[in-house]
């Protein structure tokens, strides 16, 4: 066992040595070709849904790391235009925090270059409204001939991301928002 600082420097040198040829060999990553992200707020008095297709994302099959982000202003739907305006201005503050992000790694040691259907858990930082939360999100991943289809459903508690709902509308907006995400990705050289 070596002390930490010695160990770190040793390790970074080692990483540098091995990562160069590795990076050259496996540059191909899955990138989003088509996606749909929708959310539902199922409150006592009102059901609100909205969706966006402007989702960007990458999955690196060599490291099983991933990153997704969505432009909040592109969400369409809602029950009224005013509601959408409130969503962007009051709750999400889309001017200040234009994108929601989720990036991290896939916990299960799956090989996403091999065809098949995998139930995986993606662990990473969910960054919404400028507040990061470490989350584990279950997803179903299907790999078929260089394409990757992804399906996921999860809940976002508003309190986790410092989104406060005025008491007056508390019966119209759920405290947990259900998010459904589907994406088709293809292996691309980047």
């Amino acid at each position, binding site marked *: *066992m*070596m*002390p*930490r*600082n010695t*160990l*770190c420097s040793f*390790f970074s040198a080692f990483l540098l040595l091995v990562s160069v040829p590795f990076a050259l060999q496996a540059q191909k990553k899955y990138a989003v070709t088509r996606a749909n992200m929708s959310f539902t707020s199922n409150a006592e008095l009102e059901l609100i849904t909205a969706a966006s297709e402007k989702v960007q994302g990458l999955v690196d099959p060599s490291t099983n790391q991933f990153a997704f982000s969505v432009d909040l202003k592109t969400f369409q739907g809602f029950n009224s235009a005013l509601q959408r305006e409130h969503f962007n201005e009051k709750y999400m503050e889309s001017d200040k925090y234009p994108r929601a992000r989720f990036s991290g790694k896939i*916990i*299960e*040691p799956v090989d996403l270059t091999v065809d098949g259907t995998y139930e995986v*858990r993606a*662990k990473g930082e969910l960054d919404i409204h400028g507040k990061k939360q*470490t989350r*584990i999100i*279950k997803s179903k991943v299907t790999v078929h001939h260089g394409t990757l289809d992804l399906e996921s459903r999860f809940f976002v508690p508003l*309190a986790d991301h410092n989104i406060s709902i005025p008491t007056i509308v508390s019966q119209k907006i759920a405290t947990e928002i259900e998010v459904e995400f589907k994406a088709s990705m293809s292996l691309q050289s980047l």
Partner: protein
Amino acid sequence: MKRIPSVLIVLLCLAGFLSNGQTPYFQQYHPLRRNQPVQVNALLQDTTGFLWFGTDQGLFRFDGSSFRQFHMRDSLQAHQITALAEDSLGRIWLGHSNGLVSRLDDGMIVPFEPREGSAVEAVSDILFDRRGVMWFSTRNDGLYYYLNDRLYRVDEAEGLPDLFIYDLFEDGDGNIWAGTDRGIAVCSLVDGKLTVRVIDSDDGLPDIIVRKIKQLGDGLIGLATEDAGLVSYNPQTEEAKAVLGSAWDFGSINDFVVKEQQLWIASPRRGLIVYDRDIDRAKVYSQSQGISLHSINTLLRDSEGNIWSGLKTGLVRTLGDAIEHFDIPRAGSDNNVLAVAIDHRERIWYATGEGLFVWEVGNRGSAAVTRKLQHTRFSNAPVISLYVDPEGYVWAGLYGDGLLRIHPDNNEVIHFDKELRNGNILSIAGRGDTVWVATLGGSTCITLENGKYRFRNFSSADGLSSDFIYQVFVDSEGRTWFATDGKGVSMLDANGFHHYEEGLPSRVVYSVVEDSNHDIWVSSQDHGIFLLRDGQFVKVPELRLRDNTIQALSADAHGNIIAFHNFGIDVYDVNRQQMRYWGEESGIRDKEPNLNAVSVDRFGQLFAGMTRGILKFSLSNDRTIARPQPAIDEVRVYGQHIDLEHMPRLKYNENNLTIHYLGFWYHSASNLNYLYKLENYDLEWIATRNREVTYSRLPPGDYTFKVKVSDTDNFADAREATITFSIQPPFWRTGAFYVVVFALFVISAYAIMKYRERSLLRDKLILEAKVEERTREIQQKTEEIQAQNEEIMAQAEEIQGINENLEMLVKQRTEELEKKNKALEEYAFINAHKLRSPVASILGLVNLLAKADQKDDTKAIREHLKQSADKLDDVVRSIQKAIEKADNKYL
């Protein structure tokens, strides 16, 4: 008695709805201001008993009544506390969200700065292993340990499956288990060499995300997983098994604690799950008193058995589920529960002024309430007593309208009224096929004979002491006891009625119970509980009630007498002769038990009808018999903190001491009484509710300060904390000083003696010299004197010689003189006699001439001749005289 058809008949759920109204009491705490939320990330109880809270607002210490906040140096200010640990020296260590580790040092949080630097991600746990090695885990920066003043990092190179570590645990062999996203890393550090073994799905783990690892008891290790619930792992057989029998559907687990047979599990999706391992049942508390229990970050079971939940927005504590409060779910409804009974399907039948209801608890903690007797003519009849017979029928006693027998499932109702002497049914009891009812007109015994009920009425005319009967009770020997209003207790056995009232101050008896030793106990109006012994009622001195107005009395199979009164529940353990109390601290407030409205289910759980809802009391869920733990917090001398434990010797002028002590009794911190005594100073124990005492001007001596704490005023079993110290006497009152002084005295006395001796000696010598000198002198003088004497003698001899000589001379002279005198005498004789006669003849002739005439010339010659003759006569006379004189003189 008819058997209930085995086919379940569809319930008449006319008023069914779901509720979560069954919870224990959760006390909420506010480390800061009341409305200021605090995110609690880490909980710790130190060995003294203090609770420590690591939060996003810093570190807090809690003693049950007050919080103390510890401030951090600027470098730590912005970073939340994410982990807490206590080392073997009792120091508190903190892990922060930026990877730093710090330590509480003299009231300040100071960073721990090893030369190797610090972690870069949040610290998730800190652990001191049995050898004192500090380990800390991080969220995505691996595992660290600190050994021999060096910090080492464990990562993939050592075989760590993942850098994200949730929790650390030390097993019985001293191995450190790290729960990660990819299984458990079991690290063993032998002779400075670390090896890592991984337990994951290949070893049968149902889920590789392991968020918490704790001891489960019986050598099993509990693993809280992300998706597979709680898993028990046997390190001997390496077998992993789900703890809850059924499939886990409570979501991920943030933390769990073991409380005797129960597991308390924090699930972000469902709330707080309580799983009873003995009866394999789980229930869920999702919220209590408006506090959501979903966002529990961390759990702690303290030494008293309290369960502390650190929430995202605060802190709550519960004493456990010994007491659960059932709030009558419908808003605005009458929640004064007059009677309760538990049926064979563990449904709670209860009666309020609005009617009869059944509360059915689902598997997941939810409850459905159904109204009974609807669409019958008894729908509004006031039920005041309930009983479930061994066949499962529910008997409901009405107020004035007789008795109902209700089929628990098909709701078939049989009404008895005319058969009874009186229609006011205050109590129903039974045994086997016999049902007894107590009424305001005596008692009725109902027996099932040949499929028909037979009624026998008893009144004062038959031997009952009174017709007003509060309660009827059938004991284990089949005797029937009647608690009467004003006439003591009647008992009916094969020999007829017997009366007991001697020893009761009030003859009004509310309730009769039998304990596990088959002794009969009664509650008497306003006078507490009495034991029937040899036909007389006696008070048991150890049975100390907080209130003598007992509303309901019960006894269990373990020898406990359980009394309900307006201040809570008092339990007397007959065998141990010990009292235990539950009250406001368990949430029993603003609710009072209704008279004899108590019922027991088959698990021994009691259900009491209260003025507000139902209270469930389960002694078996509270096996921890805790007592308040006293501790001496601080000792100050003239206002300055001193560490008496390490420096128990005080100087003579450090004799003004203030001792701060306290009792740890988190579930009722304000109700503590103390007894203290300073041994060697105080003569008696001193009772107080203060938490400090000051002693001024303590004389030097050895002292032991003792403090006892009790939540009652009985200190018989109270624990004691002591601290020993001594006040040193001033140096002039020390033995050493006395010895020195004595020695000095002795030495000086000796010196003086010696000095005197020496001076005496010297004086003696001088004196001797002097004496010698004097002696010599004297000798000399003596010699001189002797010489003088001799001289004197010589002189004397000489003088004698001279004298002799003189005498001879004198004789000689005298002889000479005598000769001269003879001559002189001859001369005088001649003078007188021969000379004088011629002179006298001349003088006669002169005188004759004078007469003859003579011429002038011859006259002148005669005159001259006379003159000359006179002169010669005178001379002869004077010579005569002179000789005569001499004769006289010498003769």
